[in-house]
């Protein structure tokens, strides 16, 4: 019987297998950031252990860094100390690092693919749940905790129990105006925040095959929000075209050997998945969240749900709590929800294509008077690329703020935060209570909806905008 893509990548990395024990899996790429690594480096130091493969390890600074005044010392002393600890640890253990100010600095999940370090068939880990992003290349990529970070630093391996596999098949092409973000929000609403637990999701079908690499990264990025360890898309010519020529991509004969291998990385026709979900692309439309977990989403054209809609008591309590926290009334059209902050950025939607589509919508428009819009490129190189295309001038001309690269308002760990009661339309990945700042309220949206919402002052899509005046 055939095997799935996830199983093929897994099998190619088994270092040791024994009855009654987890497989010992080799890790091809270990990405590191300042938040989840200091205790791991400390433990290595205490045990007198080196980093086994600093040449398969890469650090970048993203969670704590400010996105303004990036040429000045970090003002928050606690954040500054954590970033400094990463720099010292990398220097001591020989790990390459892209620090604030480097042209290659940025969000860890934007930097890896951009450098060509993320390639099909690899195992990629990082002390960060959005490591699932890299699965867009047909890599097996998943987030780990600090104890596992230490384990990988010391051994370049992880003991793991095989995951189950789930096919998410998107039948038909995505309708116009529907993005990878809308698709993944719809998937999570369908299977729930726990629906993917124990699974690697493989996204398949026409609606996925047609996506660009950046769209596939958005899709895989939020696999964790469905509870899955990883999401994958089988590599194809779109993948190879994206990787070719990047700094760390193979060259010459090695490129040919790599592509020949990568072409074998697909689920066999006679393979079976442990679970299958089919999404009809034609039924999709722009999707937004109303609640406090990413599964609490509805089409933009729908209304705020009611606790009476709940399937059981646990869900009813969950809806009630979410409505209270979000300050929403059941039955309110989502388009009537007024917004005061728009955040365009993050490892989900902070890439050049995201900035381009948002700029296209904002060209000749103005951000509404009572709205502030932050545009935060996912990496320093994305920022430079955007500036070379004049996108910064579009954003600034529309009244948005143009920032330096980092995680920014995705997670309330740096100066970019919501204040209590503020309501955002955010292209990030989590609408948890307080995620963007204590008391802040988050609606997850696509870059298109974010840009239109900034102009309208309430949730909306580009089709809601008055005709472009320019």
């Amino acid at each position, binding site marked *: 019987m055939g095997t799935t893509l996830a199983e093929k990548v897994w099998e190619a990395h088994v*270092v*040791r297998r024994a009855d*009654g024990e*987890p497989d*010992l899996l080799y890790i091809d*790429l270990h990405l590191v950031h300042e938040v*989840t690594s*200091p*205790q791991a480096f400390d433990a290595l130091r205490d045990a007198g252990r080196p980093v086994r493969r600093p040449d*398969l*390890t*890469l650090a970048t600074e993203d*969670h704590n860094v400010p996105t303004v005044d990036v040429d000045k010392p970090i003002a*928050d002393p*606690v*954040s500054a*100390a*954590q970033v400094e600890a990463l720099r010292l640890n990398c220097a001591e253990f020989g790990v*390459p690092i892209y620090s604030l100010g480097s042209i290659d600095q940025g969000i860890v999940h934007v930097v890896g693919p951009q450098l060509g370090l993320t390639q099909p068939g*690899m195992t990629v880990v990082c002390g960060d*749940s959005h490591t699932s992003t890299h699965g867009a290349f047909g890599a097996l990529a998943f*987030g*780990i*905790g*600090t*104890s*596992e970070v*230490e*384990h990988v630093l010391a*051994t*370049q391996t992880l*003991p793991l*129990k095989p995951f189950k596999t789930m096919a998410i098949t998107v039948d038909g092409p995505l309708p116009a105006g529907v993005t990878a973000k809308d698709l993944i929000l719809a998937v999570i609403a369908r299977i729930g*925040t*726990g629906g993917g*637990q*124990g699974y690697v999701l493989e996204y398949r079908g026409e609606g996925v095959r047609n996506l660009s690499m950046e769209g596939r990264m958005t899709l895989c990025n939020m696999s*964790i929000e469905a*509870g899955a*360890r990883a999401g994958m898309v089988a590599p194809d010519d779109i993948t190879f075209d994206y990787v070719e020529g990047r*700094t*760390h*991509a*193979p060259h010459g004969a*090695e*490129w040919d*050997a*790599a592509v020949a*291998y990568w072409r074998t990385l697909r689920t066999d026709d006679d393979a079976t998945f442990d679970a299958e979900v089919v999404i009809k692309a034609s039924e999709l439309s722009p999707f937004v969240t109303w609640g406090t*977990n990413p599964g609490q989403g509805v089409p933009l054209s729908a209304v705020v749900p009611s606790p009476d809609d709940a399937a059981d008591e*646990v869900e009813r309590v*969950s809806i009630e*709590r979410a409505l209270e926290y979000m300050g929403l009334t059941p039955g309110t059209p989502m388009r009537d929800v007024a917004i005061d902050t728009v955040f365009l950025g993050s490892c989900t939607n902070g890439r050049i294509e995201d900035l381009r589509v948002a700029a296209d919508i904002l060209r000749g428009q103005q951000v509404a008077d009572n709205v502030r819009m932050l545009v935060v490129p996912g990496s320093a190189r994305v920022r430079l690329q955007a500036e070379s295309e004049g996108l910064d001038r579009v954003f600034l001309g529309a009244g948005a703020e143009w920032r330096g690269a980092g995680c920014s308002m995705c*997670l*309330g*760990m740096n100066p970019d935060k919501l204040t209590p009661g503020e309501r955002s339309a955010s292209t990030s990945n*989590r609408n*948890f*209570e*307080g995620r963007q700042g204590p008391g802040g309220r988050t609606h997850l949206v696509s870059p298109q909806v974010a840009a239109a919402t900034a102009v309208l002052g309430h949730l909306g899509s580009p089709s809601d905008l008055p005709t472009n005046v320019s």
Partner: protein
Amino acid sequence: MDAFVTHTGTAAPLRRSNVDTDQIIPAEYLKRITRHGFEDGLFKAWRNDPEFVLNQADYAGASVLVAGPDFGTGSSREHAVWALQDYGFMAVISSRFADIFRGNSGKAGLLTALVDQETVEQLWLMIEADPTTLVTVDLESQTVAAGDLVAPFDVDPYVRWRLLQGLDDIGITLQSESDISTFEASRPAFAPTTLT
């Protein structure tokens, strides 16, 4: 790591589902570079509410947390496990745990006992009726016991073995050093390195 064989203590009922790790410990606390002292950040936003279960005197000193389904979703932050441990919890009981949280717990020595939702509901009723009820989580027999209730719980057999022995995962893996070296020698030439 200390071995975990069995634990008996009072328990706190957390009647919430989808408790994500941002709720268990907000990002602000993740700036610390130390391994201990995260108890002040545990459930930070909710602890501002006097009615929150951990603010009730009846549940002071609870060392077992009985939580709703999908506990520990979201961010991979192991700080969530450390905060629960630093606060004094030895075990969490739930009918569904998020994968990364559960893995982190196993590494750090916090027992996550997976039971059916009916057992969670029974435990909630018991510990709400009498907060002094002692709950025993026994890893040897894989059972949760309180009053007349004895229910089996699920735990990964390998994690169970490691916790019972109190073994260091890295130490175990390094016994396979020659296997790792052999594997490394067979990796394809096109596999990238991070050095330039």
